[in-house]
């Protein structure tokens, strides 16, 4: 571990000099925490952008869906491009519906079940995408302060050893070492506080989106179930 230059520290207490005076462990902790902070903000930006985008898409799709447009037509336009969210659920249900009718489905209950399964799987995949990386936000939020504290403890231990070596208890000798050690906790808090706030916000947002998808899936399932009944009963009656 590097010997802390206390004599030089007394004159200069800038942020860079504080970082450079720190020991190797404290430096590593600080670099790790800065990396965690970078990662946190990357997730925050990513989630913010994607959730906003998802909400807009949901609104657009619902507008189109309830506009009275033919579902067949809608399926044809949507199936050609990549879908997510509500449109992905719709496409999955319609695909299953198409496949079943193309091959001549006989049992209405079996068809209903298959469509529901297809929608559930798609919904699970979509909500998994929304909740991805929120776990790492939670980890950074809870562990960040502890990592920073660890850096501080190590830094204070080092500076106390250096103070003992300098054989002086003057505050000008004691203060810089402790200030430098406290920098680690400060960085830990800087990384952890946004992480905790973002985690809470995005978990709630993801929950809302999931609820919206579930609502749509139930509604669509009800519509399809009615359609199945309408389409299969004349055949059965003809037979």
């Amino acid at each position, binding site marked *: 571990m590097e010997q802390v230059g206390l004599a030089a520290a007394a004159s200069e*207490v*800038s942020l860079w000099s504080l970082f450079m005076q720190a020991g190797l462990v404290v430096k590593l902790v600080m670099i790790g925490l*800065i990396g965690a902070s*970078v990662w946190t*903000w*990357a*997730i925050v930006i990513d989630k913010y*952008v994607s959730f906003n985008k998802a909400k807009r898409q949901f609104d657009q799709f619902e507008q189109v869906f309830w506009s009275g447009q033919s579902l067949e037509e809608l399926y044809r336009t949507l199936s050609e491009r990549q879908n997510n969210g509500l449109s992905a659920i719709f496409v999955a249900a319609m695909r299953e519906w198409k496949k079943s009718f193309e091959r001549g489905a006989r049992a209405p209950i079996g068809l209903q079940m298959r469509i529901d399964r297809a929608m559930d799987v798609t919904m699970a995949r979509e909500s998994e995408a929304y909740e991805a990386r929120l776990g790492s936000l939670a980890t950074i939020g809870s562990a960040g302060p502890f990592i920073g504290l660890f850096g501080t403890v190590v830094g204070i231990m080092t500076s106390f050893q250096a103070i003992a070596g300098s054989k002086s208890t003057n505050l000008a000798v004691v203060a810089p070492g402790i200030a430098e050690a406290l920098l680690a906790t400060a960085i830990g808090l800087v990384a952890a506080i946004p992480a905790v706030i973002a985690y809470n916000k995005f978990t709630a947002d993801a929950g809302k989106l999931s609820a919206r998808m579930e609502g749509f899936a139930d509604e669509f399932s009800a519509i399809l179930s009615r359609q199945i009944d309408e389409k299969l009963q004349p055949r059965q009656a003809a037979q």
Partner: protein
Amino acid sequence: MRGSLGTSLVLHTLVLGYALVSISAPASFEVADVEALPVDIIPVESITQIQQGDKKAPVAEKAAPKPTTKPNIVENAENAGDNDIDLKTPPTPAKKPVPTEAAAAPKPAEKPVPTPTPEQNEVKDIVPEETTPKPAEVAALPEPKPDVTPPQPKPEPAPQPQPTPAPAETQAEEIPLPDAVPIPVAKPRPEPPKEEAKPVEKPAEKPAEKKPETPKPAETAKAAEKPTDKKEGKKQETAKSSSSKESDFNADEIAILLNKQDASGGGAKRSSAPAALGGKKDTGGSKLSQSEMDALRGQIENNWSVIAGIEGAEGVIITVTMKLDETGAIVGRPEVTAKGGSDGARRTLEGSALRAVMRSSPFRNLPADKYDAWSEVVVNFDPSELL
């Protein structure tokens, strides 16, 4: 995700870069160069009680006696006035220039002086007659201790004459025999008086003979005078009284002469402020303030070497009661009492406290205007605090 990571990185580098540039060493705290302020806890009596001023002057914020004209030359004066010496008596209004006359030397005083001399001379005439033979006798004797011996015979003959004279003779003769030393001195003297007048004059003559041995002639003369002739002594006394009656010595007359000068009163404390209502003297300040008391205690403590490690010294409280004069010097012997602790510790600490008090006399920095408060002062000590 990659885009947002890049954005985050860019943002962090921007923030950190700005922090590195802007957040440098914070401005160090400014320590104001504040002067230490002495705080004195004073008893409120000094403000509420009567302050020195003028009884007839109007009330003002600060009591002050009539302004004095002379500059202040007397230090530590307590009474206001133009006097050169600080006196408690009020100034006398009379300003008549009184010619002070020195008391005239009384003429009759000379008279009584010469009168006793002739009588003394008469007595002295008697003395040499008796004394002259004695030195010769003493000189002839080989013994070197003539001074020591006389006291022994002195008391012995004195009681003898008071009872019957007959046993006195025998004893007086017998006593010198056993004593080797006094024999030569005592013997020659008693012998001649016995032969001359045994019964009546014995008591009178014996002391007269022994006293001449002492070196003072005047005493011997007086002593000899009385026993030899009481009548003569009486005559002398009468002569003295008669001489005093005859002189025109008058004590009252002298007293008048001596009192020609008027008593000059008034203090010497100067006042420059306009006269304001107040008392004749400050009655407040009858207590020493906390810091004045501490200063007094500190002076004693500085001179006090408390021996460390006295067993049972914990809880000993020493009370010193001392009287001080105006200069701060101790008057008499200070009284030191100790309470608590063991007997030995108490005694040791009492002794050391007394030494410390005596060594620190005279006390300095005591306020002169509060002399009433510290003329007799009681100081308490906890010696364990001094260790």
